[in-house]
């Protein structure tokens, strides 16, 4: 598990990309992992069915925050419909190796919030689909 904390993960944790808020968000969602209190909010600027811009905010562990940061980079320019159907693979590809089962929900929180924003209701946990 300590292999997980590689330089680019720590960089995304300490210098999160697309962090903050949009002046005008066309879709947004926020959720917590009730087990640990990690919190993430996603705000989307959707134009012509495509995610033109995104911001995230929240607090939590390096896994949850770095995963969310990387996810925001992956989805810019993506059709909203495609974002709504994303599977956990996109997160696993972003972070590379080694998320233990006990920390999987930390990694998937950002994706769950993104999908909730995309479909307009609370999405399930991506790892349980």
């Amino acid at each position: 598990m300590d292999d997980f904390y590689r330089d680019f993960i720590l960089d995304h944790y300490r210098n999160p990309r697309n962090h903050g808020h949009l002046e005008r968000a066309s879709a947004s969602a926020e959720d917590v992992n009730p087990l640990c209190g990690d919190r993430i909010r996603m705000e989307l600027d959707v134009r012509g069915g495509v995610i033109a811009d995104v911001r995230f905010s929240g607090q939590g562990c390096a896994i949850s925050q770095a995963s969310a940061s990387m996810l925001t980079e992956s989805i810019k320019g993506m059709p909203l419909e495609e974002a709504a159907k994303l599977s956990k693979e996109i997160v696993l590809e972003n972070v590379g190796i080694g998320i233990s089962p006990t920390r999987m929900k930390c990694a998937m929180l950002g994706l769950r919030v993104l999908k909730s924003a995309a479909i307009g209701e609370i999405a399930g946990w991506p790892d349980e689909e």
Partner: protein
Amino acid sequence: MIAIDDAKVQRVIADFPILARPTSRGKRLVYLDSAATSQKPNVVIDAIDRYYREYNANIHRGVYEIAARATDEFEAARAKVARFINAATQEVIWTRNATEAINLVAYSWGLQNLGPDDVILTSELEHHSNLVPWQLVAQKTGASLRFIPADDRGELVLDRLDTLLEGVKLLAITHVSNTLGTIVPLERIIPKARAAGATILVDGAQAIPHLAVDMRALDVDFYAFSGHKMLGPTGIGVLYGKRAILEAMPPFLAGGDMIRHVAYDRSSFNDLPWKFEAGTSNIADAIGLGAAVEYLESLGMDWVRSHEQELLAYAFERLAPLAPRGLAIYGPHDPERASGVISFNFADIHAHDMASILDTEGVCIRAGHHCTMPLMEKMGWSATARASLYVYNTRADVDALIEGLEKAARVFKL
């Protein structure tokens, strides 16, 4: 610093089979999460095993030999717990855990005695288990909640206690904070609550494993605790209640064993304590808790307390040099005023990441809000890491924690 009796601790460790099992990475198990649940000594495991292997039968009313033995052992366990807390056996009610004990009082005593003009006084330190039941009872009865504030070190501010106690019908307060280890000075609070005419409930889940607790001396109406944090099994807990107040309360759960006579349209209820024990009890684990209490008595609660104090002092001494590198320790930070809990954060390493990295070294701690979300929000912490100590911990365990912190610092390139 007082010397830790290493020979005695080594004998204690030998009583806990799990501590001899290495982790899957081949590391020694360094168990620093006893505030969540304690490990179990052989005498407890064997007592449960013996019940199932030798005399498994339902209790009360059984006329055959093993049923009689089961009843005897079950009631003997109650007597052991009663002796341990200096109470009468009729005042010891088995529950699943402290949470269920508090809910029993909330739904039985609370719904009968609280109304729209009544105030429930609690504190800002409470575990959700001694807060959420009162929120629900307040919603049902119209009673209101009031809080004794905590200061930055997690100690209760008692300057305005007299004012806070005005019009209070129930004081529901913790004995020891699960998040910070703060020992609440009940000896200063209870006499004033008595003078104000309040009924008093204490959540003792984090106190009874670590301190000698005497119900007569404390003078509380209710005291709730769990077996699994005091070397006993999960699924068994205790509500202590003063006899007179328990007699006046309606039953909580209804069914078998709690009745005296049942007709199709009405029932009368059993004597204490069985009035509050509907259905078949958790017989095996009650017997296991009896064994745990005997084991704690054999160690001596004075020894338990002094061992933890010495270890806590050693831990603070070892942790102090890490402060300039960003280690923040929360809580009273004083072995005289705290139980064996070290709640901390290290620089920008999130508590969950800390727990994951320590896990790779066999060091078990807890991370998160510790079921005290309002306290965490008040203090401005999103999460803390919590190491908690008990009878089987040693200076070597504290050293392993420190080495784990150094590893985390390397992984996070601090």
